C-alpha cells in the first residue's frame, strides 16, 4: 500500500512550519504504511557548501567522525546529529575528499547529499520516526515523506523511502515496478550507483540519469512514462522543484491541494485536513500519465 505526503511552499512565511506540517501529514498515513517511514526536507543552504546526510547506528559517535574529517576539509564541518542520522556541511570543493574519508568508515552510510536536501528514514511507526528526528521543528521550502508497507524488498532502514540517487534529488513511490531488475542493470552501466535491491530506488536512479543527461525534472518524469513498467505514484523533489507522476492506469491513489500559499500532496485527502486554509483550497486528483511540476526558480 504505502502512503505519500509532500508539501511545496509558495509563501515563505510558512517555512518555519514546514516540518510540523509534514509530521502531521506523515502520521495520518500510518495505516497505509506502518513498517517504516522517512522524509526529506529542503532547508537552508548555500552554493559553497554541500550537506551530506549520514546514517549509522544508534549512539554512533558522529562528533568523533566530524573531528576526524575536519583535518582534511580545512575547517570543522558543521554537524547536526539527529538520532541515527547526522548532517554534515562541508565546503563544496572538499566534497570528494570528505567522501573518500567517509568511505573508510564502513559503519556510516552517505544516504543523500545536496545544497539543501536533508534525508532521514528509519523502520518503525511514522509517529516514532518523526519524533526521533524531531521533524516537527524543521523548517524548509519543500519536503516529502513516505510511510512504507513493504512489498518488493525487506523492511530495513535502507529499504525505506525516500531514495536519493543524485544531489538534492529524492523520490518516494507508492506501487511496484516490474522492470526494475533490467533497468537497474542498464543504469549501473551508465554509472548510477544503487544501495539496495529496491524497485523504487531504480526509479530514483532513472530520473537522476535522465537529469544528468540534461533533462529537466519534468522531462525526466515524462520519459519515465515510457521506460518504467508497473504501478506507481511518484512524488519527487529537487533543489528547487517538486513533481508528481502517476502511471497511466492510475493504480495508486493521489490527492492534491493547492492554495496561494502551498501545493500539497497526499495519498488520501485525510493527510491534508490539518493544513492551513484547506477548506478553501483547490482539491483535485492528479490525472494519470500526466506530469505535474512546480519549480521555485520559475
Amino acid at each position, binding site marked *: 500500500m504505502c502512503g505519500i505526503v509532500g508539501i511545496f511552499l509558495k509563501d515563505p512565511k510558512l517555512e518555519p512550519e514546514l516540518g510540523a506540517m509534514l509530521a502531521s501529514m506523515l502520521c495520518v498515513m500510518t495505516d497505509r504504511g506502518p513498517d517504516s517511514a522517512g522524509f526529506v526536507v529542503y532547508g537552508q543552504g548555500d552554493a559553497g557548501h554541500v550537506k551530506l546526510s549520514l546514517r549509522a547506528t544508534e549512539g554512533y559517535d558522529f562528533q568523533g567522525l566530524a573531528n576526524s574529517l575536519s583535518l582534511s576539509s580545512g575547517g570543522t564541518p558543521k554537524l547536526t546529529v539527529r538520532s541515527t542520522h547526522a548532517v554534515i556541511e562541508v565546503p563544496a570543493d572538499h566534497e570528494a575528499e570528505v567522501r573518500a574519508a567517509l568511505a573508510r568508515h564502513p559503519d556510516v552510510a552517505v544516504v543523500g547529499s545536496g545544497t539543501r536536501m536533508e534525508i532521514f528514514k528509519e523502520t518503525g511507526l511514522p509517529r516514532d520516526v518523526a519524533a526521533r528526528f524531531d521533524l516537527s521543528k524543521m523548517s524548509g521550502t519543500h519536503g516529502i515523506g513516505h510511510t512504507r508497507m513493504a512489498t518488493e524488498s525487506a523492511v530495513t532502514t535502507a529499504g525505506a523511502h525516500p531514495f536519493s540517487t543524485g544531489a538534492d534529488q529524492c523520490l518516494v513511490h507508492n506501487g511496484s515496478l516490474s522492470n526494475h531488475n533490467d533497468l537497474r542493470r542498464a543504469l549501473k552501466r551508465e554509472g548510477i550507483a544503487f544501495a539496495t535491491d529496491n524497485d523504487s530506488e531504480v526509479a530514483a536512479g532513472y530520473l537522476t540519469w535522465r537529469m544528468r543527461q540534461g533533462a529537466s525534472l519534468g522531462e525526466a518524469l515524462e520519459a519515465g512514462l515510457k521506460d518504467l513498467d508497473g504501478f506507481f505514484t511518484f512524488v519527487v523533489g529537487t533543489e528547487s522543484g517538486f513533481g508528481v507522476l502517476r502511471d*497511466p*492506469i*492510475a493504480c495508486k*491513489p493521489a*490527492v492534491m491541494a493547492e492554495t496561494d500559499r502551498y501545493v500539497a500532496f497526499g495519498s*488520501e*485527502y*485525510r493527510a*491534508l*485536513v490539518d493544513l492551513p486554509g484547506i*477548506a478553501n483550497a483547490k*482539491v*483535485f*486528483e492528479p*490525472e*494519470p500519465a500526466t506530469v505535474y511540476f512546480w519549480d521555485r526558480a520559475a
Partner: protein
Amino acid sequence: MTASPDITFDLAQAPLRELNSALHKATGETNARLWRVINPNGRHALAAGVNAPVTIEVDGHVGYYCAGMNQQARVIVNGNAGVGVAENMMSGFVHVKGDASQAAGATAHGGMLVIDGNASARCGISMKGIDIVVKGSVGHMSAFMGQAGALIVFGDAGEALGDSLYEAKLFVRGSVKSLGADCIEKELRDEHRKLLQEKLEAAGLAGTVDIGEFKRYGSARQLYNFHIDNAGAY
C-alpha cells in the same frame, strides 16, 4: 442547507463508527429525517450501509466508499468524494457536489448518482442498474463491463469507454478518447431521447443540456460468447 437538521453530527467530536451505527439503526419509521454531518475530513465509509429513507448532508470532503451499499437514503456531499462513492448502491440518491475519485458507482444495482464535477477512472465499472449522471468528464475505463443502467456524461470520456460492455447504456455529450473492446457508437433514437429525458428529470437536471447533443454508445454484442475469432479481444 435550507431545512434545519433533525440531527447534527460533528465528526471532530464523535467517532464515525458512532454515526454509522446510528444511521444503521434508522428505519422507515424514524423521525430523524435530516442528518447533517460536519467535519468529515476525508474519513472512509461515511454513511455506508444505510437502509432508511433519510437525507444525510455532509459538509466537506469524504474518503473512500461514501454511501456504499446505500438503500433508500439520499446522501449529499458538499465537497469531493474519494474512491468508490455509492459503490454497490441498491437504491436511493447520492449527490456529490465536487469531484469524485475512481470507481464511482462501481457495481451498483440501482439508485441515482449525480456528480457535479468530474469523475476519475473506472466510473460505473461493472454497473448493474444504477444511473450515473456526471456533469463534468469521466476518466479511463468508465462503464467497464457495465451490465445495466445508464451512464450520462455531460463532458468528455477518457480512454476505453465501455470496454467489454454488456447492456449498460452510455451517453456522452463531449468527446470520447477511445472506445473499449466491443463498445460502439449507436444511433440516438426517440426512445433513447425519452430515456435521457427521464433520467435527467430524476437527477433534477432536465432542461440544463440539449439532449440532442449526446451520442449513444452500447455493446456490439460480439464478446458475449467465446468465439475463437475474437480471442485477441479478450
